[in-house]
């Protein structure tokens, strides 16, 4: 099974005031992104706010329709899906969100929350549902009496476990993790990251982890995709990208991440300026106004997306 995005674009209209018709322009949140995740793999998507990583997650979860491009599941385009395909897709692709304080309904018991993704017409009887809920709760390491309790009776780390259990209940193949540990306390992060890794090995899951935390992404990811202003700037095998970033943005992003020891204070590449306005992104390469290694053609010509090494793709005029 494979989840594949081909040339995905998502533009949001910018309207002035209350009028829907007065579209002044488009926010190019995602502008031609192609990535794929195979079974058992972990794709890490990193980038800063405004890079389009969350929009990409929403497209994967069918929460937004792409403006252009297509999403393929098992070789079949989502645009051609029939009702059964949607049911199958939603069962196979689940999600865990950032903040377990807002992603769990405070008025529902944990048992109901975890059982909710199961389709009404799944043909499972109540005891079967209860059994499945107990199974996944055990998988994530929550106590047996949990189904009868409410989310407020759990700590942040345990709530994230509930969210993971809810994602697992439909026997998914893919889980989209949108900043899964960013809202948690540091001492709890390791517990959740280890749990995610353990579940992946045990259940053969594929993850798409979306994160601005480069260390967490590195811990889980096997492949890495770096995004900037709605476009991919680099993809490759995770360790290779960390060891030798090709695109100047990747290099700057990795060098801005702070290592965990004072003696590792190294020469940081401090980027000037900020992530560009997505309504009118810079011409040519979108990174050129901030790029420390800018070339004359960067402001006029958009660099081509191509393989510059085996299994290393980037869009940069340097190569």
């Amino acid at each position, binding site marked *: 099974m494979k989840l594949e995005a081909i040339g995905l674009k998502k533009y949001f209209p910018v309207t002035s005031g209350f009028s829907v018709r007065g579209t002044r322009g488009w926010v190019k949140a995602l502008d031609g992104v192609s990535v794929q995740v195979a079974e058992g793999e972990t794709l890490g998507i990193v980038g800063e706010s405004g890079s389009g990583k969350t929009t990409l997650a929403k497209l994967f979860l069918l929460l937004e329709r792409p403006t252009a491009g297509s999403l393929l599941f098992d070789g079949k385009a989502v645009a051609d899906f029939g009702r059964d395909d949607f049911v199958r897709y939603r069962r196979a692709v689940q999600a865990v969100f950032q903040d377990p304080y807002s992603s769990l309904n405070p008025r529902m018991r944990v048992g109901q929350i975890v059982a909710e993704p199961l389709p009404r017409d799944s043909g499972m009887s109540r005891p079967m549902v209860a059994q499945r809920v107990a199974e996944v709760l055990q998988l994530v390491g929550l106590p047996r009496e949990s189904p009868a309790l409410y989310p407020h009776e759990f700590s942040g780390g345990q709530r994230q476990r509930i969210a993971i259990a809810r994602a697992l209940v439909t026997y998914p193949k893919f889980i989209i993790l949108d900043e899964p540990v960013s809202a948690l306390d540091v001492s709890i992060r*390791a517990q959740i990251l280890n749990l995610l890794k353990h579940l992946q090995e045990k259940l053969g899951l594929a993850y798409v982890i979306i994160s601005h935390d480069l260390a967490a992404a590195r811990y889980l990811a096997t492949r890495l995709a770096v995004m900037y202003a709605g476009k991919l700037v680099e993809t490759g095998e995770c360790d290779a990208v960390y060891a030798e970033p090709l695109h100047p943005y990747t290099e700057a992003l990795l060098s801005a*991440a702070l290592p965990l*020891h004072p003696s590792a204070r190294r020469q940081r590449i401090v980027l000037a300026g900020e992530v560009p306005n997505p309504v009118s992104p810079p011409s040519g390469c979108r990174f050129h106004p901030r790029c420390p290694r800018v070339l004359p053609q960067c402001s006029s010509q958009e660099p081509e997306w191509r393989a510059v090494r085996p299994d290393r793709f980037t869009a940069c005029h340097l190569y």
Partner: protein
Amino acid sequence: MRESTPLLVVEDLKTHFFTRRGVTKAVDGVSFTLHAGETLALVGESGSGKSVTCLSLVRLVPEPAGRIVGGRVLLEGEDLLQKSSAEMRRVRGKKIAMVLQDPLTSLNPALTIGTQVREVVRLHQGLRGPPLRERVLEALRRLRIPAPETRLRHYSHQFSGGMRQRVSSAIALSCTPRLLIADEPTTALDVTIQAQYLELLKEVQASAGVAVILVTHDFGIVAAIADRVAVMYAGRIVEMGSTLQVFDNPSHPYTRALLRCLPDVGLKREQLVEIGGQPPDLARLPQGCPFAPRCPERQPICDETYPPTVPVASGHIASCWAVPGAKARA
């Protein structure tokens, strides 16, 4: 060790919250000193008392539930806890300034940036007219805010996150305070913007000789800019020392566990070491060491008595029964 008199001395500070559930000991006996120009990082998880310690220093603990119940806070030899509220107003913003986590909420959305910077400078420096304007522009220029003359007329929503944090730092540093308290200043910022901001903070700090108390939960930031570190757990400092001492020779099991459980961008770890359990409930603290239930090196004595603070090396202290010499001191 420096011999000069410290800028700030905090002795046995205690801030408790009186709630229906009982007394929450948010800060329970915190002591440290800070010299001019030095950066002290307060690290710990949420609920460890870092932010309440900072609020206590400027006497902004939410009353009536919260009260400073003991200790002394000496800034340049004067006890802030003995001052009247009118006197405190002259300390805040002038001698001690604060930068908070989210500049979107700490700036007033209905006033222009210029008005907000001007207010502080006018109040504390008594300037008016052209000198006031010059001072305001200088404050913005120091934090490298481009085109300050036009930016003065803008509102906070017209700034990006990184620029907004620079504006609130410009306000904080406009009256050249002796002490800057930065409470998670970069948590709301992106990594490349965080790098910009930290560089700038370090530079401005060095030129103005300000002492900084940096509250954070990110050991990466600590490693990058702090001179000394104090690790907090359940309202107390459990370990304090120079940044190198704490990173190279972490002496409290909690510090050791924290440093081991974090994924590092520099290396790939096969398995992260977990800290089991949850942070304690501050209203129902155990009799002994509050970390004992989660501690891998727990001994019988840990459940009975809170461990004494023992020197590990010069300028490096830890509160743990497992540190050599702890039992002799008890």
